[in-house]
């Protein structure tokens, strides 16, 4: 058994770190060199000397934070070397540009799953099964109560939700990067043919997706002083940050919903304060995590991003997989 210090990748100050390459993965504080798995803000921090990511992630990041960052990019599957360690990005199916990161050093393979999902999503590359010895996996939804419905079914539910209340303006809250585009892609294939509006932050990301060659349905950018009659029966996509506070006063006769994996639980749905919840997630559900653990053929697994206690115990008891802990 090696000690924690001897692992190729370990936890340091709450972040994943590879000492041999002196490189950090999605660090939460400024460092010299940072590998970025995807362009969500909880995986990015300002002030690093150098960032390394996929081409798509780099473009999305620059759209969001400006050109003033130094990013080196690589294609999916393209191998590059840092201090003798082989590194490569592989699609993780989370959002456009999102990646798993593989490290190979002296025959030993490590894989950081990044945020990932296995479900269908036409706005990004499908999750690629990568074999590894060590797997570091996220487990945001690491309990068996989380089992996602087909995204097509959810989209149809959303379509029905809007069309069943033609008198109302339907506000659907979702993350502006990734979730919004996935929803637009799905909803455009349903029976709902009314107007779709989107908030500036979502509108911007739609354009970025289009520039990167993803076909996203055209939406109308929502202006503050829209006529109420005009909005009746239409769908408006908004970021969750606007659900509390005075922004909603711009609309009359509304119904609200939140699109998130957490909405599969009634208590959370009720507590969230939205009228309705649609359980759709860009993270893997329980079966998804188990499938990735199995297919990766990893003998050793670490979990982070989530409550991993139950998942770890289950894998040890039921699947005899060695689950390791970084410690903090």
């Amino acid at each position, binding site marked *: 058994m090696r000690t924690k210090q001897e692992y190729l990748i370990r936890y340091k100050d709450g972040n994943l770190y590879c000492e041999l390459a002196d490189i950090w993965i999605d660090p939460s504080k400024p460092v010299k060199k940072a590998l970025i798995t995807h362009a969500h803000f909880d995986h990015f921090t300002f002030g690093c000397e150098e960032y390394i990511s996929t081409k798509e992630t780099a473009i999305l990041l620059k759209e969001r934070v400006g050109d003033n960052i130094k990013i080196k990019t690589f294609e999916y599957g393209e191998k590059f070397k840092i201090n003798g360690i082989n590194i490569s990005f592989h699609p993780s199916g989370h959002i456009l540009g999102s990646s798993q990161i593989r490290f190979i050093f002296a025959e030993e393979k490590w894989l950081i799953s990044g945020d990932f999902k296995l479900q269908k999503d036409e706005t990004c590359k499908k999750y690629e099964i990568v074999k590894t010895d060590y797997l570091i996996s996220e487990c945001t939804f690491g*309990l068996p109560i989380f089992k996602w419905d087909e995204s097509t079914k959810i989209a149809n539910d959303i379509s029905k939700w809007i069309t069943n209340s033609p008198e109302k303006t339907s506000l659907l809250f979702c993350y502006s990067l990734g979730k919004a585009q996935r929803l637009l892609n799905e909803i455009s294939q349903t029976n709902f043919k009314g107007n779709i509006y989107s908030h500036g932050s979502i509108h911007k990301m739609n354009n970025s997706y289009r520039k990167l060659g993803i076909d996203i349905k055209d939406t109308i950018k929502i202006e503050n002083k829209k006529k109420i009659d005009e909005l009746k029966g239409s769908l408006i996509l908004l970021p969750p940050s606007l659900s509390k506070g005075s922004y909603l006063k711009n609309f009359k006769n509304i119904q609200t919903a939140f699109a998130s994996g957490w909405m599969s*639980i*009634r208590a*959370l*749905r009720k507590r969230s*304060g939205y009228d*309705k919840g649609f359980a759709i997630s860009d993270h893997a559900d329980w079966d998804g995590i188990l499938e990735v653990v199995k297919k990766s053929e990893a003998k050793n697994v670490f979990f982070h991003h989530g409550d991993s206690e139950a998942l770890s115990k289950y894998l040890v008891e039921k699947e005899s997989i060695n689950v390791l802990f970084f410690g903090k």
Partner: protein
Amino acid sequence: MSLKKFSELFVDLDSSNSTNNKIEVLKNYFLSNNPIDNSWAIYLLTGKSNKRFISGRYLKNLFSQIYEYPVWLIDTCYLKVGDSAEVIALLLKNKSTSRKKKLSNISLNELLSKTIPELSNLNEEEKNLQIKNIWERLPEDYHLIFNKILTGTFRVGVSIGLITKSISKLINIDEEIISHRLMGNFKPSIDSFEFLINKNINLEELNSKPFPFLLANTIEDKIFKHSVNDFQFEWKYDGIRMQLIKRSGNVSLWTRGQELVNESFPELVEKMSHIKDDFVLDGELLVWNFKEQIAFDFSLLQKRINRKSPTRSIQIKYPIIFIAYDLLEINGRDIREIKLENRRIELEKYFSKWQNKTENNISDIFKICDLIFPKDWPDALTYKEKSRENNTEGLIIKKRTSIYSSGRKKGIWWKYKVDPMQLDAVLIYAKGGSGRRAGLYTDYSFALWKDKELIKFASAYSGLTNIEIKELDKWIKKNTIEKFGPVRSLKPEMVFEISFEKIQISKRHKSGIAVRFPRITKWRKDKKINDADSLDNAYELMNKIS
């Protein structure tokens, strides 16, 4: 017609926060379904008397056994979800791979009057097999409803009030009438639904049913602008609010929770049945200290509530009294529309008439409430402060000219409660909440000092705002000393002001005291644990009032 429709109704009701929306949804449901299923829907939604066929624990164990899931994993899921029926429904997803014919069209009536009751006739093995069979044949969307019916935990935020309003809208009849028809044990049947939606109002059939209760509001400052002479003042007793009804010779005793409790208090029913007049009285049931003419503590009343057919010795040990506040109907004449002051005159008149019949001495079990006559509002306040001495909770203040309407109508009746007692205590344990509060630590235990030790004295789970709950939850997760299942013991650091209504000696608790209705009234971030109160302070409080 089917469970499918009811399942959809559940989803629709659950995904709306608007009352008007819910009423509309209900109305449409009642319009498009048959009377018997409607009747079951009302039975389930009002949820009062839903029978529990199996416990949540049983359900979890059964699932674990059938699908070889470790029980600890199901329990962990429960902490997140807070409802056994829902946990199992979520876990059942993608499990019903059976090729057997699906039960897609099963009616609510068939499920509730046949399929589920039949489970009780089976031995355990057959029962388990049958539940598994239903799970596998029932479409996934119905699992939650089915499990909830099984475990008798059907709560969807639909009150009797909502049902009343939707039916009232459906047939265009006053809410009061519908509310009246819905009182008491609602037995699901075609007849009961048709009675509910009958456009002809028949007084005869309403005979044993109570009137909707009029409730008091918490006092507001604006009342002090009026003269005290505009109001009738009564003590606010801490018993069970009831209506005592005698019509066509039959006595019935109804709680505000719409339960018929004749069987628990046979001596009262017996005595009152000898009175010649028919009547409907609104009042309070108490266990009474006849020597001192004050109420005994509520805990003694608890010894009577849940006991049907109490023995003679129980009746003597815990002697009850019905204290009438109000007369609502006399000899078939509904007098709720006349002014309170005139109803009071009637009440006093009949009481003295009944009392003077020597062959039937009712005074050992029945009286009318004494009135208080404060000179002015400061005087009323003095009375209020004295209320603990006679074991009451404060005052009830009623407008003399008011009629007896139903519900919590504003501005007619007020409750003026004594200020609660308070102690500053240290948070020592937290437990995960259930239902809406699942996944958060929301049940707390508090301790007081005894020498250098912290002794648990009360548990409370209400009083914090949602923001405070989230903040405290975060703190709890970071400051856990030990976990025992869902309970965490915590680093003693946080001080809270705990308010409660009553404090008394208790042998069952390590602290030696028990408090009633404890709740959090302030998060004392300004206090250190050494500033918290001691058990001695609690004993002082107790001595002060007795």
